[in-house]
């Protein structure tokens, strides 16, 4: 109970959790929450480019679709893309990092060199190349993002595993004859878990921004998918008159990414007692 109250006192954490929860709720309850659920694919040209008002809370886009409703359904997409891409990246990167960090063989160096190459180049640049090759589809965005993001986790886990290897409790486990797999799963992973969780949460924010950028560039799913980045791209030709068209999805992205960043920061304070931040 005392920990919970202390958690509540960290305003950043509270705001982060609230924003992320709102995102998840918006995604799950998009259908009942939205006013025009059919506007995900349907449209009404007579209503195009209407400013925010009573019927259309956030205005309409160039096809006359309700932006508010499309935003809600876009939340689903955002979660789908970022969670899946991050999950895949973690599932690839963490084991690779563990293996490279635990063993000190030739492949450790090789794996890390490969990771370094990926990390040496901006993620979006590689993602563009991959997404373009594969074609505009949601799964390709996910693939492009996870393919360019796994090295980040591989490096992180590698560094932490390396430093842990010299810890006494690992040596003790080895001395007792535990198999490497057992050591990695039962000893190393729990010790680095908090680090992984924190980076993953912050990584979600970066993934959402990257996915939105790909959508903006036209590399995401084709229209009429209500992807937030694509919506902003579409809005460009109707500026400055239809200001709501660009503003709404942008604010959605801002709030969601901010939520994940705050959540990640807050988790770091809670989970990692070694780091004492200014408070």
């Amino acid at each position, binding site marked *: 109970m005392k920990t919970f109250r202390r958690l509540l006192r960290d305003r950043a954490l509270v705001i982060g959790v609230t924003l992320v929860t709102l995102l998840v709720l918006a995604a799950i309850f998009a259908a009942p929450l939205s006013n025009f659920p059919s506007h995900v694919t349907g449209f009404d040209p007579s209503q195009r480019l209407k400013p925010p008002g009573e019927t259309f809370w956030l205005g309409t886009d160039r096809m006359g679709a309700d932006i508010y409703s499309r935003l809600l359904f876009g939340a689903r997409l955002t979660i789908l893309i970022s969670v899946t891409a991050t999950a895949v990246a973690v599932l690839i990167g963490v084991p690779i990092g563990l293996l490279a960090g635990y063993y000190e063989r030739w492949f450790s160096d090789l794996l890390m060199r490969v990771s370094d190459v990926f990390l040496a180049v901006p993620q979006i640049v590689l993602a563009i190349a991959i997404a373009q090759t594969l074609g505009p589809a949601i799964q390709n965005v996910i693939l492009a993002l996870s393919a360019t993001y796994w090295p980040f986790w591989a490096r992180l886990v590698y560094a932490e595993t390396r430093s842990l290897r010299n810890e006494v409790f690992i040596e003790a486990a080895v001395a007792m004859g535990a198999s490497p797999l057992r050591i990695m799963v039962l000893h190393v992973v729990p010790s680095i878990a908090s680090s992984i969780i924190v980076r993953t949460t912050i990584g979600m924010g970066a993934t959402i921004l990257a996915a*939105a950028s790909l959508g903006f560039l036209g590399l995401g799913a084709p229209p009429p998918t209500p992807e937030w980045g694509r919506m902003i791209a579409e809005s*460009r030709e109707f500026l400055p008159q239809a200001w709501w068209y660009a503003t709404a999805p942008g604010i959605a*992205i801002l709030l969601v990414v*901010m939520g994940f960043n705050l959540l990640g920061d807050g988790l770091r304070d809670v989970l990692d007692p070694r780091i004492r931040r200014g408070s």
Partner: protein
Amino acid sequence: MRLLVLALRRCLWMPPTLLGLTLIVFTVSHIIPADPARVLAGENAPIEQVEALRRKFGLDKPLPQQFVSYVADVVQGNMGVSLYTQRPVADDLVERLPATFELALFAMGLAILLGLPLGVVSALMRNSVLDHAVRLVTIAGLATAAFWLAILLQLLFSMELNLTPVQGRIDGWGPDPITGFYTVDALIRGDVDTFFSALRYLALPMMTLAIPAMATIVRFTRAGVLNVMSSNFVFYQAAMGLPRRVVIWKYILRSALIGTLTQIGLVFGNLLAGAVVVETVYSWPGLGTYAYNSILQSDYNAIMGFTLFTGSVFIAMNLLVDIAQAVLDPRGR
């Protein structure tokens, strides 16, 4: 002399990394697609054209052989021909590099110029109103999509307030190129009008890129200064009564700056990545818009060339940062 050896040793890492990058790009362009020739020719090209391309670019040869000739090509600067401009991709890229670099450097400069002092002051006045305001703004700054920020700024300053031009890099023709940087070239030629015009066009794109970079710099500097402030030597200097301002501005700052420097490479990377979308919004004639147009045209060679080129520039830049860090931190020597 020692520094030169150090620099050379770091340089040794470049070729393998570049080779690795080439391999990745090769994998993406030649191995991932089911039919690279088809991708190159385009969706709607007739089958004969696809086959002709296949033979022309040696895409029917075994993969290792393809890779070797690919590397050979790249090393000589041959990245194929752009389907759209019909020029060698390498030429296109080199032509557009100065525009992006000018933008990136100005943005980076602004980010450092504003971000460093803000980070330091924020740390020194921890938990003050200023500190909280700065932290709030940086959190928001890191969460904004660069392209959205670009559009917003464009909406506000160009379209509504008419303070800056909406798009482009210059009115009419730029100054005769020496460096390719419009600002520098204008100054060298003594053309003050062009110089200020170039600045006006630079203003918004520069600000758009600088804001997220500044946010990162402020955060890292703040954390760095706070970290250093609790170190033993700061305590010792205080215990020995050294004047506070000397301790802060000479010793704490230097330690914190070293920490920030390691992040500069990262920050610059994100900046360049942001340039892709930001240039698009402002129609800034650099590498970013080139990439964007190439995506629109499905200009395959151009996109791969862009990836390879930008990646290499990046790797070179990381190397420079590494060397700079080694120079500045005596512990590394």
